[in-house]
């Protein structure tokens, strides 16, 4: 059995929190450049150019891309042949977040209790999703999530009779309601199927997909393309001030569901779609 120390996990997560908040992945950068070329609205184009400039400044001067450096969402895929040594895995992850947010000059945006609302001052705890997989490796994805867009996300418990048209309507409704609040251009993560909580996690995971990649299921891929077109026809545009680039991508994940239901979750992310993955 392969051993992996919690110390290494802490160090890795610390680095990933800092990296994710300062540098967008190459695929996102290319998406931005393509968007500037495509955008017809002059103000929209100007805003997109500001956002590109913003990314350059963030990277070269080590200033977070956005001041909302998010709540740290962490996906752990843990190979069943790995033995974690050196203490609690959960504590190691949170320690990584704590160190990353402190040493990386990231904003502490987490309150300890949703009603009492006292800031924990180190951005912990993270939201951690554990999955046991095959093999002897651990895959870590750190995806800091800003709440301007998180607040505009929705779960719809549709009826089977609503079908694919109902799904399309749900996605459009969420995007229309989000409008400027979600800092468009958005990335729209959609989960269809499963249960109430499963579809939400599917939608969240859809956000960390590489730009330009599509579902392997033919009808889902078509749905992704159709919905991106429909969303861009709304005219919401960059910053919600009019234009043709309202979303960069619609990423949809599906899962088997119950005969009586059709759960749909729409997790909206802003253009600062931060995610870093490393495999240990």
């Amino acid at each position, binding site marked *: 059995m392969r051993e992996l120390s919690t110390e290494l996990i802490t160090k890795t997560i610390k680095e990933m929190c800092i990296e994710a908040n300062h540098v967008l992945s190459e695929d996102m950068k290319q998406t931005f450049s393509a968007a500037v070329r495509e955008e017809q609205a002059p103000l929209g184009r100007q805003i997109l150019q500001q956002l590109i400039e913003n990314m350059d400044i963030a990277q070269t001067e080590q*200033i977070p891309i956005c001041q909302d450096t998010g709540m740290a969402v962490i996906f752990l895929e843990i190979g069943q042949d790995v033995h974690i040594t050196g203490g609690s895995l959960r504590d190691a992850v949170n320690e990584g977040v704590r160190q990353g947010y402190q040493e990386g*000059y990231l904003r*502490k945006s987490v309150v300890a209790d949703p009603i009492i609302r006292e800031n924990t001052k180190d951005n912990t705890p993270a939201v951690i999703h554990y999955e046991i997989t095959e093999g002897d490796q651990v895959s870590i994805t750190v995806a800091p999530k800003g709440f301007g867009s998180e607040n505009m996300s929705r779960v719809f418990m549709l009826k089977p009779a609503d079908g694919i048209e109902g799904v399309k309507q749900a996605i459009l409704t969420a995007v229309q309601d989000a409008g*400027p609040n979600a800092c468009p251009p958005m990335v729209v993560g959609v989960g269809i199927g499963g249960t109430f909580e499963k579809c939400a996690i599917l939608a969240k995971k859809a956000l960390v997909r590489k730009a330009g990649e599509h579902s392997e299921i033919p009808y889902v891929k078509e749905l992704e393309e159709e919905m991106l077109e429909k969303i861009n026809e709304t*005219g919401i545009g960059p*910053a919600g*001030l009019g234009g043709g680039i309202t979303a960069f991508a619609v990423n949809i994940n599906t899962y088997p569901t119950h005969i009586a239901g059709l759960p749909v979750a729409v997790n909206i992310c802003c253009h600062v779609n931060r995610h870093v993955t490393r495999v240990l």
Partner: protein
Amino acid sequence: MERHISVPFGEETACSLKAGDYVYLTGTLYTARDAAHKRMQEALDKKEPLPLDLKGNVIYYMGPSPARKGKVIGSAGPTTASRMDKYTPALLDLGLRGMIGKGKRSKEVLDAAVRNKSIYFAAVGGAGALLSKCIRSAQVIAYEDLGTEAIRKLEVVDFPVIVAADTNGNNLYETAVSDYLNNRQK
């Protein structure tokens, strides 16, 4: 139209701004977001003085990331303005001249802005690194215990914003999308 104005500013300047104008602000801004607004409301309820004079001033809905050594501030972009809607009309009635944030406002806020000749500016969300370059100094003036949500006094130079709602009740968030769609069809 592109404009350069200094803050604080008076009624006349406010009335000369039109929804859609691209404006560079130079002068003083005060930051306040959810928790600071809540405290200001509590102060007003208890008839206590506010920690800043609102007259002619502009509040920026923003909570920065921490400053690195040698820098005045970290990333510093706008947050969603509608979360402040509940508190805003009272502040406008006390003389607040402008607000900077992102997203749509409630009818109550827009009406209060027209009534008091105040402006709602939009800054580009998610451009916090870029916007931080326009901030020359930052100083916490109240509610320090709120951390990022404390009230800060900022000195800014050519801080870029767009007039989202003007004193005549024009609202760019309502018109920009339909204007784009109409022009595109031509």
